[in-house]
C-alpha cells in the first residue's frame, strides 16, 4: 500500500480560513459552470443593459444609459444573492449536500460565510463585465470616484444581505421545486416593479407605494442616486435594505431546515 494511503487515524480539522476558502471556491465554480445560473447572472442583465439603453422604449430622466446601468447593477445583485442563491441552496438541501457538509469539520457558520463570500465574488465578476459593457455604451457615472465607490459598496453589501435573507428564507423552508418556481417568479415581478428599467415614478400611486418599499427598488434607487445624480448616502434606501435584511435573516435563522 502506498504511503499516501495510510488509514491509521490522524484526525483533525483544517484551519477555519482554509475550510471557508475551499468551500467558497467550490460554490463559485458551481455558479460559473451552471448554464442556467450564468443566464440569470450574466446574460439577462447584459441583454437588459444593451436592449434598454439602445432602444427608445421608455421615457426616462436624463441619458438613457446613465439611467439603465445602475438598474442593471442592482438586477445583477438580485440575480446572484437572491435567485441564484435560493435555487442553489434549495437543491443542495434536497440532494443532502447541506446535511453531508454538516458532518464535516466545516461549521454551519463557516458554510454561511463561504456562501456569502461566493456571492460577493460572483457579484464582483458581474460588476466588472457589466461596467465594461456599460462604459463601452457611453455610460458616464457621476460623483467623486472614491466616494461613489464607497457608497456603492455600502449599498451593495446591504442589498446582498437583504436578498440573501430572502433567498435563505425560501430555500430553507420550501421544497426545492417550489423554491425554483417561486424564486424565478419573484425575480420577474421585482424586475418589473423595482425600477430596474421602468421608473417607479411612472406607476400609478397605489402601486408606487408598494414598489418603493421593495428591496430591489431601494437598491436601484440608491445606486441611481449615487451614480446618476452624484448624490450622497441614500439613507432612506439604505434603511429599507437593512430592515429587509434584519427581518429575513432573523426569520431564516429560525426556520431554516438543513434537510
Amino acid at each position, binding site marked *: 500500500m502506498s504511503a499516501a494511503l495510510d488509514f491509521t*487515524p490522524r484526525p483533525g480539522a483544517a484551519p477555519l480560513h482554509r475550510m471557508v476558502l475551499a468551500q467558497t471556491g467550490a460554490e463559485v465554480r458551481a455558479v460559473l459552470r451552471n448554464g442556467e445560473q450564468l443566464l440569470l447572472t450574466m446574460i439577462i442583465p447584459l441583454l437588459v443593459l444593451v436592449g434598454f439603453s439602445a432602444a427608445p422604449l421608455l421615457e426616462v430622466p436624463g441619458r438613457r444609459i446613465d439611467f439603465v446601468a445602475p438598474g442593471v447593477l442592482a438586477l445583477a445583485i438580485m440575480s446572484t444573492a437572491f435567485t441564484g442563491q435560493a435555487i442553489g441552496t434549495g437543491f443542495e438541501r434536497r440532494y443532502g449536500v447541506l446535511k453531508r457538509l454538516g458532518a464535516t469539520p466545516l461549521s454551519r457558520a463557516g458554510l454561511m460565510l463561504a456562501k456569502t463570500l461566493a456571492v460577493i465574488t460572483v457579484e464582483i465578476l458581474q460588476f466588472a463585465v457589466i461596467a465594461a459593457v456599460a462604459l463601452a455604451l457611453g455610460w458616464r457615472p457621476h460623483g467623486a470616484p472614491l466616494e461613489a465607490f464607497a457608497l456603492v459598496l455600502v449599498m451593495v453589501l446591504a442589498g446582498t444581505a437583504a436578498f440573501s435573507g430572502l433567498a435563505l428564507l425560501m430555500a430553507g423552508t420550501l421544497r426545492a421545486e417550489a423554491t425554483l418556481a417561486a424564486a424565478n417568479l419573484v425575480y420577474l415581478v421585482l424586475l418589473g416593479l423595482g425600477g430596474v428599467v421602468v421608473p417607479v415614478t411612472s406607476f400609478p400611486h397605489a402601486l408606487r407605494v408598494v414598489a418603493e418599499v421593495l428591496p430591489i427598488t431601494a437598491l436601484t434607487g440608491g445606486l441611481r442616486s449615487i451614480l446618476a445624480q452624484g448624490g450622497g448616502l441614500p439613507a432612506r434606501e439604505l434603511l429599507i435594505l437593512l430592515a429587509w435584511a434584519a427581518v429575513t435573516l432573523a426569520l431564516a435563522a429560525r426556520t431554516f431546515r438543513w434537510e
Partner: protein
Amino acid sequence: MDSPAVALTDLVKRYGRTIAVDGLTLSAERGAVTAILGPNGAGKTSTIEICEGFRRADGGAVRVLGLDPARDAARLKPRIGVMLQAGGVPPAMRAGEWLRLVARFHAHPLDPGALLDRLGLTEHARTPYRRMSGGQQQRVSLAAAIIGRPELVFLDEPTAGLDPQARHACWDVVGELRARGVSTVLTTHHMDEAEKLADKVVIIDRGTVVAEGSPRTLTGAERQLRFRARPGLDLDELLTALPTGTAAKESPSGHYVIEGHVGPELLGTVTAWCAAEGVTADDLSVERRTLEDVFLELTGRELR
C-alpha cells in the same frame, strides 16, 4: 481515552407519534466493526444519525468517542467519517473535486488521487457525480467518509445497490480500516456482510435491540441438517424416530431442515428413514445456522 467508540443508553427517538427508537442500549468497541442489522423501519438510520449529530435524541444518553454529538459537535466532527445512505454530493461536482474539497476540511487527509485509485475510480475522477452509476456514487461517498483519516466511521448501508466486485472492494476497505485501528459502525440488510465483516452484530427491531454478540455467538453451536427431496414427506413420522427436542420443517416446498443435536446418530436415522420411504435425499448437508436464520427467527417473516 478508553471510552467505547459508541455508547448508547436507553435511547429514545420519536417523530410525532411514531416511536422510531424505543429504549435502545448498545455499545460499539474501539477498533472493532459493529454491524447494526434490522428490517426496514427498525430504527437503524435514526440511531446512526443521532450518533452522527444529525438528529437529537428525545431521551437516553449518547456518547460517541466519549463526547456528546449534540453539544460537542465541533470537537467530534473532525474525528468521525460519515457515509449517508444516499446523496450528499452536489450532482454537478466531479468525483475528484468533491474529494479534494472534503480533504481540505481536514488537517492530515489522505491523498485524493491515491484514494480514487484505491477504489477504482481514477478514470471517473472528472465525471460529474450525477453521471456515475449507483455503485460508483457509493464508492465516492465511502471515499469521502474516510479521507479525513477519522478514528470512527459511520457507514449507513454502504453496499446497497453495489455489484459483487464493488461490494468486495468496500469490504476490503473496511477490513483495512479495522487493521489500522479505525472503529466502524455500519448498518446493513445483508447477512453475509455482517457475518463476514463484523466483530459484533446488533440486531434491532421496532427500535430496540433484540440480540447482540459476535456472529458466531448469535448463530450458536446448533447445527442443521438440510436436504432436498420430493415435496410432502410425512415429517411427523420421522420425528417419532428422532430424539425429543429435534425439530423438522419443510420450507420452502421440497427443502427439508432438521434442527437439533446433529450427530452421526441423527444422520443415520434420517438417511435410514429416507431409504425406507424410497426417496433420495439430494444436497444433503450439515451446516451451522446462518445469521439469516437467526434474524428471521427474531424479527419474523412478515413483509413490512
